[in-house]
């Protein structure tokens, strides 16, 4: 039996396997991107960057619970200029790197895109879907087809790079939103961002644990909803999908691919299984694929729709 191939082609970006480091995990420095590449990831996304530097919310900002994790980091980032400096010479990182860009108005996104234009990013991701940061994502009304269309169109004008639009699992008609992104020129959909928000209260303290009180839910709690979102989006658009949410094993990855994903994001599972989770997932996928006679990722994409 030949070893199945995990090679993945994500709108022209060649990856040695379908795993992607989602934005907000470890993507703070070039040195960490190299480390994640050493751990077997197929591509990596940097921590979302706004034009100006942001300190984010106070600690606690991240808290695990039985069903995964809650976070309200609040988009801390050193701003576009610093980010351009930190991620210069990206050729040193042996995998494709995706720039995650945030803003309030379409122009904000464009200004960041311009600052990063000399860096060797492989794609731009627009997370229009954060549920817990005032001025951004859902709290800035970016989760509508109109707003999504406008922002994508503006960035489309400003860059030739593939554009990924990252959607929220909170949106009921997520297929329509994906369609709006596709129509405005998006090259792929990242589905999904965190769910909720949710809240965890410490009953002895009588207070929410997160300093921002509420935070987005990631991890296994999110997985069935993320899978359904990918399934719905696959029926609505032709562009590829990066399925993200609660994936921590090879089986989960294959489930997401069968729902319609071409690549898969793995974030919260880093906490559960360590930074080596990418290599572990790839090995588990390979084993399952050879036992079940699949030769390539491509043979599995969207087959749950048959």
């Amino acid at each position: 039996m030949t070893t199945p191939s995990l090679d993945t082609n994500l709108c022209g970006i060649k990856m040695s396997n379908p795993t992607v480091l989602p934005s907000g995990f470890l993507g703070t420095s070039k040195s960490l991107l190299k480390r994640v590449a050493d751990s077997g990831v197929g591509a990596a996304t940097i921590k979302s960057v706004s034009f100006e530097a942001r300190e984010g919310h106070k600690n606690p900002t991240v808290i695990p619970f039985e069903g995964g994790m809650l976070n309200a980091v609040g988009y801390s980032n050193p701003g576009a200029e610093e980010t351009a400096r930190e991620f210069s010479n990206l050729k040193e990182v042996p995998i494709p790197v995706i720039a995650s860009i945030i803003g309030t108005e379409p122009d904000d996104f464009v200004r960041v895109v311009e600052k990063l234009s000399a860096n060797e990013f492989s794609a731009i991701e627009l997370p229009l879907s954060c549920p817990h940061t005032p001025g951004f994502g859902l709290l800035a009304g970016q989760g509508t087809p109109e707003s999504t269309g406008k922002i994508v169109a503006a960035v489309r004008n400003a860059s030739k790079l593939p554009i990924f639009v990252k959607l929220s699992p909170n949106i009921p008609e997520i297929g329509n939103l994906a369609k709006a992104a596709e129509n405005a020129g998006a090259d792929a959909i990242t589905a999904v961002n965190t769910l909720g928000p949710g809240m965890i209260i410490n009953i002895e303290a009588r207070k929410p644990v997160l300093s921002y009180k509420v935070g987005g839910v990631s991890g296994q709690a999110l997985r069935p909803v993320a899978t359904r979102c990918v399934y719905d989006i696959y029926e609505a658009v032709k562009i590829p999908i990066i399925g993200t949410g609660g994936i921590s094993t090879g089986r989960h990855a294959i489930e997401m691919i069968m729902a319609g994903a071409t690549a898969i994001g793995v974030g919260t599972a880093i906490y559960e299984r360590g930074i080596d989770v990418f290599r572990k997932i790839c090995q588990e996928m390979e084993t399952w694929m050879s036992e079940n006679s699949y030769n390539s990722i491509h043979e599995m994409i969207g087959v749950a729709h048959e």
Partner: protein
Amino acid sequence: MSEFASFDQPVMMKIDKIIDESNGTKSFMFKYKLDYNPGQFIMVWLPGVDEKPFAVSYLGDDFFGITVLERGKFTKLLHQMGPGDRIGIRGPFGHGYSFPDSVKNGKGSVCVIGGGCGMASVTVLIEKLQNNNPTILMGAATSRSLFFKNRYKNLTLFTDDGSEGIKGYPTDVLEDLHNKHEYDIIYTCGPEIMMSKVFEFCKKHDIQFEASLERYMKCGIGVCGQCVCDGQMVCKDGPVFDLQALSNMNDFGKYSLLKSGKRVSLQEYADWRSC
């Protein structure tokens, strides 16, 4: 009250008693069992205020304690608390000091160097190394900020201003001490500039070396990337690193990330942290 040993989410623990260590430094004692290895850290939560990492400075079968220098808003509020008040604690996190074969069972010559409130991180280590009868060096800016000075008898004190103990840095005497004791390993926690001097010394003399790094932390569990030092997450891969690991970390002794993620010189970082 001691059913917990390590925890993902903050557990509100009653302060059992408070020890005045020095003018401006207090230890807070808790009657809880903690599965702690010297060098690890815990996250201390003041509900509605903030959450910060601390080392454990006292450890018994069913109690532990932390030692805190009053520096900013958070430590000030902590210093205002009394016995019976509750604070949130999660952890312990990270990897502590290791004990290579060369120091096991009381054999091996050991030196421990604590600087500033880094001293809090080496006490449990010192107690674990009791049979090695380690050289203990402690430095502080001034007499006022020295603590634990009476905790160990075989201890040499240094102050920058000479207000107590020897005037100068602990690193000033390393050469002499090593000639005499031929250290197998030197452990240290303190200002990174001090630690990097010790690092260079150990490298030159081929001595084993372990240092506990300090970076601003958010998640504390290795997911957010805030505490990065050259591809290593200080919260998860560290905070203790050995000579080998530190040799590959160009940022060690040089750079650290502000809360925004901006990478700056340790000086700029220290200025931000101290306010």
